[in-house]
């Protein structure tokens, strides 16, 4: 399958606000506009990758991602994942994936107690086989912005050890010349993104769809997403 034949779907919840940005990013890479599906949909046309975008689904009421995680469309997402399908959650999407239990842990309020929007430097981890990391050499560093109030990844020590031992830590924040602490939110083990035990589901706090051209955010997001798409297509 070529990248342009990839069927990408983006789930849209009330309060999602990075759905359009992700749609534009995917169209830039694949030449094909992804389908946006409303959260109330239960039967989806066949697809290869479903993305849970960033934003404030259901206004972050109750808990970030809690209500979206119980939306009708998530049944289809979980079925897809159970069949070994690929799922990507960015920012609020990562929060949704932890709420459903598809990924372990939880995203707590930032350690600094404030919303933070700025560039971060992240490093590709030594993971199990995963389409989300396989196209980038271990240790590759990327500059990708974050924008969140709850990005402080937390899990039990057992879970954290398991993530490390299994090679599920996809991205960690690393030192760079960007102003401020390397880890913008206090996340355990500097975790910026993790994958599921089979490598097919990834959640990450940084927003690759905001780094798609040199003049807007730099091109590292495009690099990351295009390698994911290539790996999924092959």
């Amino acid at each position, binding site marked *: 399958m070529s990248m342009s034949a990839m069927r990408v779907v983006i789930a849209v919840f009330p*309060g999602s*606000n990075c759905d359009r*940005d992700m749609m534009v990013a995917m169209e830039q890479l694949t030449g094909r506009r992804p389908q946006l599906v409303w959260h109330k949909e239960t039967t989806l046309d066949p697809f290869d990758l479903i993305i849970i975008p960033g934003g*404030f689904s259901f206004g972050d009421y109750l808990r970030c991602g809690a209500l979206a995680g119980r939306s009708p469309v998530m049944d289809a997402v979980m079925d897809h994942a159970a069949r070994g399908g690929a799922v990507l959650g960015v920012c609020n999407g990562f929060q949704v994936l932890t709420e459903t239990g598809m990924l372990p842990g939880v995203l707590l309020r930032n350690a600094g107690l404030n*919303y*933070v929007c700025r560039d971060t430097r992240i490093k590709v981890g030594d993971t199990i086989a995963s389409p989300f990391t396989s196209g980038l050499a271990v240790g590759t560093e990327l500059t990708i912005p974050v924008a969140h109030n709850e990005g402080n990844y937390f899990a039990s020590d057992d879970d954290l050890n398991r993530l490390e031992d299994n090679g599920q830590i996809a991205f960690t924040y690393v030192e760079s010349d960007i102003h401020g602490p390397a880890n913008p939110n206090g996340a355990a083990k500097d975790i910026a993104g993790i994958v599921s035990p089979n490598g097919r589901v990834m959640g990450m706090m940084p927003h690759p769809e905001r780094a798609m051209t040199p003049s807007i*955010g730099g091109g590292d997001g495009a690099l990351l997403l295009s390698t994911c798409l290539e790996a999924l297509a092959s």
Partner: protein
Amino acid sequence: MNMDTDMMTFEHAASMGLSEDEWQLITKRLGRVPNLCELGIFSAMWSEHCSYKSSKRWLKTLPVDGAHVIEGPGENAGVVAIGDGLAAVFKIESHNHPSFIEPYQGAATGVGGILRDVFTMGARPVALLNALRFGAADHEKTRHLLSGVVSGIGGYGNCIGIPTVGGEVNFDPSYNGNILVNAMAVGLANSDRIFRSAATGAGNPVIYVGAKTGRDGIHGATMASTEFSDETESKRPTVQVGDPFTGKLLMEACLELMASDSVLSIQDMGAAGLTSSSVEMASKGGLGMEIDLDLVPAREEQMSAYELMLSESQERMLMVLKPDATDVARAIFDKWDLDFMPIGQVTDTGRLILLKDGGTACDIPIAPLVDDAPEYDRPQADVPSRPVIKTADIAETGPICDVLRKLMGTSDLASRRWIYEQYDSQVMADTIAGPGGDAGLIRVHGTDRGLAMTTDCTPRYVEADPKTGGAQAVAEAYRNITSVGATPLAITNNLNFGNPEKPEIMAQLAQSVVGMGEAAKRLDTPVVSGNVSLYNETDGVAIQPCPVIGMIGVIDDVALAIGNRITAADQDIVLLGHTNIDANGDVDGWLGMSLYARHIANRKDGAPPPVDLDAERSHGDFLRAQIIKGAVNAAHDISDGGLAVALVEMAMKSTFGIDVEMPETTNIHGWAFGEDQARYLVVLPDSASFISAAEAAGVPVQKIGTTNTSGELKFGADDAISQEELEKIFEAVIPDLMHI
């Protein structure tokens, strides 16, 4: 007592802020005394906030026309053409009083309100800016207010998903008891798909959509039209509560509905809620309106007609639909889980009739509410002109770098990073330059075009000389837009002043509008929308006057836009513009009302720098043409702190250094820190052709230095400071203030 039907007296009117004359006029127009609901409607419509009664006479003098103006003042927001059939829709609005009482909600609802003004016009909001003024950095309330306002702005803007790309923040003791929170929104629409508010067609349905009406914010517009006192805390219930999630749903639902060709007219329920929206729609259409208040979706039980009409609950809209479009519209609002309720109809009676509990709660003619709203030509005191302070009369205090160590550590010049990192500046993925540059710059989605935007005002200049200060705010905004390479297009203004019933305050207001108007005319930037916030006083003491300018500009090919940071070594740095000369012919710079005078010499007297509009125009036009030609790598407006501070800002966060060539003058401090206007710093690989082009155009230019890789700012042979040291000072101020 039935509050809705019992007749009122002047005492009731006075408690709502109406004067004896205004009360008499109401009873004359009605031919009887009003009931509570009717009186509430009059007092809201005739409040300073809704009627502009003190400022209207002066606002009328501002230039509002231009070839690209599609909609000037009077609608929810101004609209200007930006090319290719697209239009920018924008406005600024204050939420000063609520933000002081309840900083998070006050600021959040300020953002929500200005966004509704923009999407009401049919535009998708694409950017937010703000202009904030707080009390002294060390004042006991500043930390709490700054923290609350910043999280409130972020809380709304981040959630609804519109990037905050620019703004300004200042600190001054005059704002200790009355902060300023002005929010600006910019949207994009097709030029031929602009929606307006005038009601049309008697018999057409009037629809209420959005959130339910509660008892929050009742009579907020009236609160915003009175001074504060020690009892301000008791006004907390008049502050509205924002819900950005509902705001997002309402925005999406309205834009979806507007695309369906169902809407005849639409108006946001902002200040004075259902009152101002129904009255303004009917009045602009020359029609009447009948509303059954029992149908209004209410959050609380037993709400009276008065409460329903004066509530300022957020995230609500009123619209007139095509008669056959109700079903289509209802389906859209159902999808977004929002209330959709036909509550009345347009009539041809010219009256506002409100039904409640089977009776008539209000029956008043609409014309007097708008047309007879009082308009005052309030007396002005003479503004004494301040003496010009000679630079030689302000003591020089040592090496430039020592002064920089102090100045970059003041709250006026310190890094705003702690603030702007709490705003999502990148959502929508079109932000080319967010906060921290001269102007915010976004790509017009799906095109090569760029939209530049900025907010500016220098209150200390306005206080010293209102007319010059009013012009300077426009000139500085013009320079900021120009510095990125964009052509300034139009203005929105937010006039923040004290009590206009005091002649010296009225003089500040009137004279600054005169200066603003002259500048807007000369710089071809008509004023297409705006807001007035008066009575910014606490216990009789007024704020430093703050007529904020929000300006937008356009650049046809956004790839040609530049930033304000040095990007390479071995570049020339050119000073563009004229610096004052002393009696001996030596350069001396204008130190009166400068930050140097304020922080280093501890002087707050003297005249501010004069504004030469012809120079602003020719310098701006010349620089912009050079940027578009690709001759310039970086440009920066020289403003607060003068030349030396502008140099620091251009090298900040880089590994580059600058060798500055020192002039022959006895007034080095004036040269380094004077705040002469109409000046820029320009960085480019080869200054020779730039300089000869400037000379041919009659624009004063002078090469003043070169860039290198030293990471050090060097003024002459032995006065140097590292960027690292300056950055440390610059970045620490606000975090220290916030005890981080």
